[in-house]
């Protein structure tokens, strides 16, 4: 019995020692790989900087590891630069082994590998990756879709704008990330966004109107004005918000009508937009709402009045029965002064 216990103890001790040795070996190997990686990076950053600066491609044949380190350095730099510098990075990666490797990784069974590849392809900025990234935008994993959307924004892929908007509207993509991608695509996305103002899903219509408010111009005002009578309140509010940025004199007339919307947040958005447009004709209606409207509407109306006619607001706020919202708006004006 004692002998058996001794053998068991020996086996246990030996296997622990082997396990420990494997762990230490692995740790040492990872650390040395990390050191090698840091050295390579330090050596290749100047090469990457020269390449970004347009001083030619690296001379001599790079090893596979050097190529990977250079690709990583350029990927990091691509997030920091735009214009010619970014075009040069895309040019370097076009047809490269790194690009092919990342495209292949988009089909990996592991979702983190697909997400990493989708993200790196955006950093590489190569237009040839667009079709594969559009496919990745329909990946079952949210992280992969998000990485693909970010990258499609970086490469300015207008064709994916519709899909990004739909996924933004139904929550399949993080809102901030999707909106940023669409804004990065910029004017090229506008034709598709304009088409989507007639989308059957009210959430898509609302998102599109908000984006047109940021990326569109006064030629989009008529679309937003029409949306002020949309059956969905969220769409009407988004239209008012957009008109605050891109509206014209004609838009102000429609927004004055929207002050009477039966839904409070729509009327509040209209009031805010009239303030942004500095529509003096809206003054009396805003003053009336600021005194007697619901909380959000009255607050928005009072603050809009402050933008349109600061002196008038101060006078009105000083009158008896002006109410809390006019007083608050006047206090805010005093703070800003």
């Amino acid at each position: 019995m004692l002998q058996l216990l001794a053998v068991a103890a020996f086996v246990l001790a030996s296997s622990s020692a082997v396990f420990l040795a494997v762990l230490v070996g692995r740790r040492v190997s990872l650390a040395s790989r990390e050191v090698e990686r840091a050295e390579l990076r330090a050596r290749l950053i100047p090469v990457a900087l020269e390449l970004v600066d347009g001083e030619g491609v690296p001379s001599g044949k790079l090893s596979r590891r050097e190529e990977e380190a250079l690709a990583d350095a350029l990927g990091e730099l691509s997030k920091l630069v735009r214009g010619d510098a970014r075009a040069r990075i895309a040019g370097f990666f076009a047809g490269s082994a790194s690009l092919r490797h990342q495209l292949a990784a988009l089909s990996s069974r592991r979702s983190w590998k697909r997400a990493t590849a989708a993200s790196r392809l955006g950093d590489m900025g190569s237009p040839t990756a667009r079709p594969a990234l559009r496919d990745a935008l329909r990946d079952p994993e949210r992280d992969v879709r998000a990485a693909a959307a970010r990258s499609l924004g970086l490469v300015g892929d207008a064709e994916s704008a519709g899909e990004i908007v739909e996924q933004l509207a139904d929550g399949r993509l993080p809102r901030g990330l999707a909106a940023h991608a669409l804004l990065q695509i910029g004017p090229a996305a506008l034709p598709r966004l304009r088409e989507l103002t007639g989308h059957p899903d009210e959430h898509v219509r609302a998102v599109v109107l908000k984006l047109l408010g940021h990326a569109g111009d006064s030629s989009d005002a008529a679309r937003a004005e029409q949306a002020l009578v949309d059956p969905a309140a969220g769409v009407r509010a988004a239209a008012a918000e957009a008109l605050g940025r891109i509206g014209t004199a004609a838009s102000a007339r429609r927004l004055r009508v929207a002050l009477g919307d039966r839904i409070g947040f729509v009327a509040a958005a209209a009031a805010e937009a009239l303030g942004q447009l500095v529509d003096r004709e809206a003054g009396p209606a805003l003053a009336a709402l600021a005194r007697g409207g619901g909380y959000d509407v009255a607050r928005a109306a009072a603050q809009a009045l402050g933008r349109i006619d600061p002196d008038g607001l101060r006078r009105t706020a000083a009158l008896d029965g002006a109410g809390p919202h006019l007083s608050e708006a006047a206090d805010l004006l005093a703070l800003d002064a």
Partner: protein
Amino acid sequence: MSDGERLPLVLAADDDPLILELVQFRLERSGYRVITATNGDDALRLAREHRPDLAVLDVMMLGLNGYEVTRSLRADEETRDIPVILLTARVQEADVSQGFDAGADDYLTKPFSPQELRARVQAILGRR
């Protein structure tokens, strides 16, 4: 005085080392001497010590931010004339006007074009 000492001196401050390398690389290639800082406090200290001909400051830095460093430079008789270019990821109109209110001469939004940075630096130093 050596040739190197006659070259205009630019102070670059950003908490991202890669941005600093990029700015330093581009400006040195364009014939400037560059000193760098990775936070706002060091940037202010270096500006007082070296009196650079121009400062390129990131807005969002550890310690003092770019606006605060600019305000401090403007408040000091010795450093008030140093032109400042703010490098910012913030592109809202209010952020830009906050930069000018603090006393900045120009701003560039990230991601930025290194050539554009060089052109802006050259334009400001050329005016002096």
